[in-house]
């Protein structure tokens, strides 16, 4: 049987995850000195690490080509999917927030407000719950630009420290929800390889 495969979100979450795995006693040398390799064995364990972009982590886990994934709650909220979401890893903490220029009142006037975001589903859901009809513009890069260029009235984005907002004259109007890194598991793997996955999850959970 192939090794248990763990899909890690590249970048910010990667370092934290590797630190957590090392704390749990896994040898992560291969991941730390990975070069350009994308699939990396984890020490002498029957485990492989796959490095992928956040949304792809969900895709790989959902299709069962990876058994376990580490991915931000932001990505889970935006892309959804069928998998078990079993651990809040605690790191990668930040929040989704609704932000606008200081003088903007988003609930004034009758015209539909336009919201710029990289996360159209999260944004839609947030305003659906308020029963508010809005227009959504999907932006790929710096979302803060959209209200400054007056393309949008506000943005929904991930806020960590809020310094980018401040420097551009924007402020948080409302928090949408808090997010952090999660461990997700393929529904079939959870059943088919219960013992291996249980053992791994337990070792990691003890370090949280």
């Amino acid at each position, binding site marked *: 049987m192939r090794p248990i495969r763990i899909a890690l979100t590249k970048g910010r979450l990667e370092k934290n995850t590797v630190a957590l795995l090392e704390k749990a006693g896994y040898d992560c040398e291969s991941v730390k000195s990975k070069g350009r390799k994308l699939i990396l064995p984890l020490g002498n364990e029957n485990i492989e690490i796959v490095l992928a972009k956040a949304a792809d982590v969900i*895709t790989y886990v959902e299709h*069962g080509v990876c058994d376990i994934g580490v991915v931000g709650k932001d990505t889970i909220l935006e892309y959804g999917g069928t998998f078990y979401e079993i651990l809040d890893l605690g790191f990668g903490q930040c929040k989704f927030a609704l932000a606008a220029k200081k003088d903007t009142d988003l609930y004034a006037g009758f015209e539909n407000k336009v919201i710029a975001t990289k996360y159209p589903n999260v944004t839609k859901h947030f305003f659906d719950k308020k029963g508010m009809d809005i227009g959504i513009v999907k932006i790929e890069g710096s979302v803060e630009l959209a209200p400054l260029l007056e393309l949008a009235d506000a943005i929904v984005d991930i806020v960590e420290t809020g310094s980018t907002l401040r420097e551009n004259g924007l402020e948080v109007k409302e928090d949408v929800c808090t997010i952090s890194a999660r461990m997700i598991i393929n529904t*079939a793997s959870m*059943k088919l390889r*219960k013992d291996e996955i249980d053992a791994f999850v337990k070792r990691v959970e003890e370090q949280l």
Partner: protein
Amino acid sequence: MKYNLITPEGTKDVILDECFMRRDIEYTIRKMLLRSGYREVITPEIEFYDVFNSDYFAQENLYKLFDQKGRILVLRPDSTMPIARLAATRLKDAPVPLRLFYIQNIFVNNPPHLGKSNRISQMGAELIGVKSKMADIEMLVSAMETLGTFCKNGFNFEISDVGYYNALIAKLDIDERRKEKIRRNIEQKNYPSLNTLLDTIEQNAITDTLRELPKLFGGKEVFEKARSLYTNDEINSVLSELEMMYNTLKSIHFPGKLTVDLGMVTRLDYYTGLVFKGYAPEVGDALLFGGRYDKLLSEFGYDAPAIGYAINMDSLVRIVASNLNYPKQPASDCLIYVEKGFELAALKTAADLKKSGKRVEFALLDDVADAQKLAKIKNIKNMTIVTGPRNENDSEMN
């Protein structure tokens, strides 16, 4: 833009070996079910939307169209609803137990680019009109037998009873929306969110049990664990019936692994009691699911209990295809080359060969050398040349 060279999102052509294997699997399954008294039905690909207009199906996932009177039609997203409709109408007076099976496509309008199929071939069996332990066993064994026949790398068969969760949640005095949230978190085994949610309501033995529910899966130890958490008469009877079923199935010695997952609480579906799923290492999602649905037929005006299951044939074909020893379509035994003017003689030659059990095909080429090349490409071992003045001239090729 003209789309005449591609198939719609989520669909594909099933061709050659894959098609051969699929029909072969279907044939085997049909034989198994026919031997157990099941009778085959085919329901229409299109149904009125009203058949599926219930909480069980998200409307955005339905393919919809209109008939000439402006009524909404859908491509069926499931076969159990049409069979419930059928059983409650045309087959209402048929003697029970009514055993039906089907092998047909369902259609789900998934969001694009997820790599999901929008046309899914399913086979399923339904046992209508009887609620008994033996009926449940019959269904479960039928499902396990089918998986055992094709899943040569093993499979995992999992049983549960939605009655367990229902009995627990009924004891909580909270609104439906919060109950649904709790259910969803249990289904997704989302421990962190489930705990946060349960923290907001009054703590008691029920909330403690619900916190543990996502973990209540595995072998027979699950029953002990569940009993140690919280029980009442209803829960006791659900657990002991399920345990009895577990022990019965365990004693049959199937090649697969049998497990229990009390946290199997699927969304707003029509299951009312025993539920089960099948997993195989080759596919990332359950390839078999089923359960008891004792209230569904009454939605169509016929109050009768029922139990059934469906298997994703596409997944089954994938599993079978990964087994290199599974038979594919064999090459023809004989290629027949026909000289001009000897067509009738060729027909007779072909008929005689077929009668003796050979697979034969005509070369349909003007040149013997080309026909010999073709035989090589198609891996056909023998060539027969039909020509004159003698009628036949067998030439063995190596």
